[in-house]
């Protein structure tokens, strides 16, 4: 899914939101066979029972997070596996891999970033009582999408 020449430059962060949304839509369409629709984050309250994260280092430094409720995470795993018996372990695994692919797909679309940016392996936190705080102190890009009628929140928090 790398785009020849990239779609945006590092200095043009104001243009990154549509690129992030495109990266998300491609991952859901190709790997889950599902369309996701962007929505206003304020339309739904975040119920982050699962938070997946992937760190970025190098030309792009920060953290990508994908969060949703437990039922949505299980539904994502079910769609990926084409299996009705997805476990909580599968839900966490699937959400981590979704976050990984969104991050990779997004950075592959940024001109000059792809060659100089490394990704961490994904980590996933589960449980209804957690709060995620990133120490990244730069800009953040955030979007929310509806998957099977439920919100999935994606955020890229950058170091300055």
């Amino acid at each position, binding site marked *: 899914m790398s785009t020849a020449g990239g779609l945006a430059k590092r200095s043009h962060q104001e243009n990154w939101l549509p690129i992030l949304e495109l990266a998300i839509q491609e991952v859901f369409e190709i790997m889950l066979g599902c369309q996701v629709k962007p929505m206003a984050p304020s339309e739904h309250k975040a119920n982050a029972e699962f938070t997946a994260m992937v760190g970025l280092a190098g030309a792009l430094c920060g953290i990508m997070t994908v969060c949703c409720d437990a039922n949505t995470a299980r539904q994502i795993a079910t769609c990926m596996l084409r299996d009705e018996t997805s476990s909580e372990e599968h839900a966490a695994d699937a959400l981590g891999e979704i976050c990984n*692919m969104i991050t990779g*797909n997004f950075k*592959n679309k940024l001109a000059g970033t792809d060659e100089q940016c490394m990704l961490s*392996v994904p980590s996933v936190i589960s449980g209804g009582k957690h709060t995620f705080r990133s120490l990244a102190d730069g800009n953040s890009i955030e979007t929310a999408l509806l998957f099977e009628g439920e919100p999935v929140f994606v955020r890229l928090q950058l170091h300055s």
Partner: protein
Amino acid sequence: MDKIRALIVDDSSVMRKIVERSLRQSGIELEKVVEAANGSEALAALQSNVVDLILCDINMPVMDGLEFVRQVATIGIAKGVPIVMITTEGSESHVVQALSAGARGYIRKPFTPDQVKEHVLPLLGKKP
């Protein structure tokens, strides 16, 4: 097509299942699928399993996919067995590193079954 034995290396169990399903959707009949969660587990699996094809992620804990490919070449196991990287790392430098280390193909995630077919079948001597 003869049935093949495949080693699928990825730290995500969900992704290992998707890769296996993509192989089957490509028309490849699988006699056996061996799974490993990282390069170290994959090297151990190759000590006790003969395989015809290896599909390997890059970003994995313990031993990453590039180091696994280098180790396969250094140790001299699985000689002649095609290794295809399946990874989110899409940069040219990663592709060059993987191919230089001995990988024969490179598929970027997210991927379709058609992309698996296109990259894997020629390595098995078949037309995609």
